[in-house]
């Protein structure tokens, strides 16, 4: 059984799509279509789980994994820092601006620092940081693996006796566990500074009050909760992007560049949905 290597026709068959263009399309009732979609979704989920488990198992026996990990951290981490800083800064500025005005209505503008921290640390920072990394590193990962699949580079690695999941995917999954919390922490810091810029420098709140509130609101449970989320987001979105790119040949209805385009789009969309859905779930559990 080769759930990952089978070309895309297997998915078509599972989905009941016609094998040959000349064959008449099968007419399905709404319920049948729904049922088939559910089966496909469960099948995809099973494939995805297999993929993740096999990628992690491939870590065993992986040679020079430290250099691969460092490279993956550089690609996913360092290159995304500018976008994290930019988005973090603007997010802090907006929260500072909106928050100050909202709080001022109730005469509670002194709580701005607290509001910025609570909004960011266990809420927006892990989500937005994850979405930004999905947009930059995740899409790049899916496209890179898709192109490597199409140009048979993944097959080439396999014929060298090297596990392609270990070579291409596993280091990135581990790198995500390092990179996402760091990104979230950077987002937190820059966001808080952004809140300071708009709340204190632009709107005139007292600096000491702002920082005191920030200090009070920065509880270990908040910070820890945010980092927990970032760990989970990082692992899941990296796995989704890698899965889509690695299986471009069997999950896309088109071949070549269009196939890569489809898998990259799917990677970004599914990852973004996963981040928001997981955020809801984790937040529900945390509180």
């Amino acid at each position, binding site marked *: 059984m080769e759930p990952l290597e089978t*070309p895309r*026709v*297997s998915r078509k068959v599972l989905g009941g799509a016609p094998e040959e263009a000349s064959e008449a399309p099968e007419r399905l009732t709404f319920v049948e279509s729904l049922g088939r979609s559910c089966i496909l979704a469960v099948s995809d989920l099973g494939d995805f789980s297999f993929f993740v488990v096999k990628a992690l198992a491939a870590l065993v026996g992986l040679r020079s994994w430290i250099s691969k990990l460092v490279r993956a951290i550089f690609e996913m981490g360092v290159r995304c820092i500018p976008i994290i800083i930019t988005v973090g800064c603007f997010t802090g500025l907006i929260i500072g601006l909106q928050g100050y005005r909202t709080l001022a209505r109730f005469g509670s503008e002194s709580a701005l620092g607290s509001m910025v921290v609570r909004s960011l640390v266990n809420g927006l920072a892990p989500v937005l940081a994850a979405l930004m990394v999905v947009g930059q590193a995740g899409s790049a990962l899916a496209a890179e693996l898709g192109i490597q699949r199409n140009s*048979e580079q993944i*097959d*080439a690695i396999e*014929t*060298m*006796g090297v596990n392609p999941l270990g070579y291409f995917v596993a280091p990135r999954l581990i790198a995500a566990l390092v990179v996402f919390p760091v990104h979230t922490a950077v987002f937190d810091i820059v966001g808080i500074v952004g809140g300071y810029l708009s709340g204190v420098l632009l709107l005139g709140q007292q600096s000491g009050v702002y920082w005191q509130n920030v200090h009070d609101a920065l509880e270990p449970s908040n910070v820890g909760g945010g980092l927990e989320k970032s760990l989970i987001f990082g692992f899941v979105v990296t796995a989704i992007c890698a899965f889509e790119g690695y299986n471009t040949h069997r999950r896309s209805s088109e071949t070549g560049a269009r196939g890569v385009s489809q898998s990259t789009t799917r990677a970004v969309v599914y990852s973004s949905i996963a981040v928001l859905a997981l955020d809801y779930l984790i937040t529900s559990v945390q509180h």
Partner: protein
Amino acid sequence: MSTPFLEIRGVKKSFGSHLVLDGIDLQAERGSITTIMGKSGIGKSVLLKCIAGIYQADEGEILIEGKRSAGARSRSPDTPRLSYLFQGNALFDSMTAMDNVALPLVETTKTKPRAIREKVLALFEQLDLGDVADKYPNQMSGGMQKRVALARALITQPQLILFDEPTTGLDPQRKNSVFTMIADFRRKFDFTAIIVSHDIPEVLFISDRAEWMDRGQIRFVGAPTDLEQVRDPVLLDFVNHRNELLSELAGQKGRTALFADWPELRRSYDFFVVANCTTERRRPGSELGLRRFVSYREAVAAVVGIERKHSQVYFLDERHFGFAIGGVEAGSVQAEAERLLQAVSDGSNLKNITRYHWGTHAYRLAEVLNPAALWALEENAEVVANTHHLPK
């Protein structure tokens, strides 16, 4: 009976409801070159990928040295090493040529980096790739990329190499040099090769065995020379179609006519060696690599002497002959013709010669006769016509 190095028994492979391989049986002896021919999209590459273990066969077995093969996935040190030369080379575009070729050693052995580098550089030297070590694939020509991919396939000194259309996209000279490389390296490294190629007859010059695939099965198995005796209309159409199509495209009706005349020619002469039949005009006496270009008259003069002695006619094709004799310095046409003749006389090297001879028949003759540059040399044409009664 000895066990074949590679044995495929009843391999079937489907993608969905589409049956691609429908019970493939194939055997390859150790150190042999087997060519798999067939139309595009009939599953030749799928078969190679099944052998390599990239795809798992639905049914049947693939045995290497009599043991079930896990393809390239096997990590066992006892398993014969296997390499795959991909049609598109599959070089890593973010890596230099050095890193690409070193990759299999870096990832699968404990060889020290310096030793790996020395090994790669030595291989580059052998493949005439001296200055590409630090170049990226997009900085190399197609021929260079192909040689780098070949170097990567050879670096682990595999016992089995699978070549998936190794000459796709190369010009005729590069094609010949790739086939020459494969033949040379097969002798040097003693690997078994399975080649999927559409370059007929060129690939057959270096093949020990030809297999023709159609509708998911092997329909023809034999020595390349056996293809001459084949009567299967589909195979005949496949083998001959290229020439006819080229004739149509180029408006060169003479090729088809010549092909039709070939059986007649064969009855008269057993062997043909064609001299200086390049489509380019080259000055007699000029040199290209190890080959010296001779005039047609010079070549025919050599041939005439032989003919008197043995009533056989030889033509030497400078390009394909140089290729066919596999790196022997073609110092003079006459010397080579005599060498061939001697080999024919004592039967010591008959297989190679007949193989070459098969590849040179009508297609090669057509090539000689068509270029106006050659026929325009009336004096030579006259000699040829008088000597061999070829249609003018």
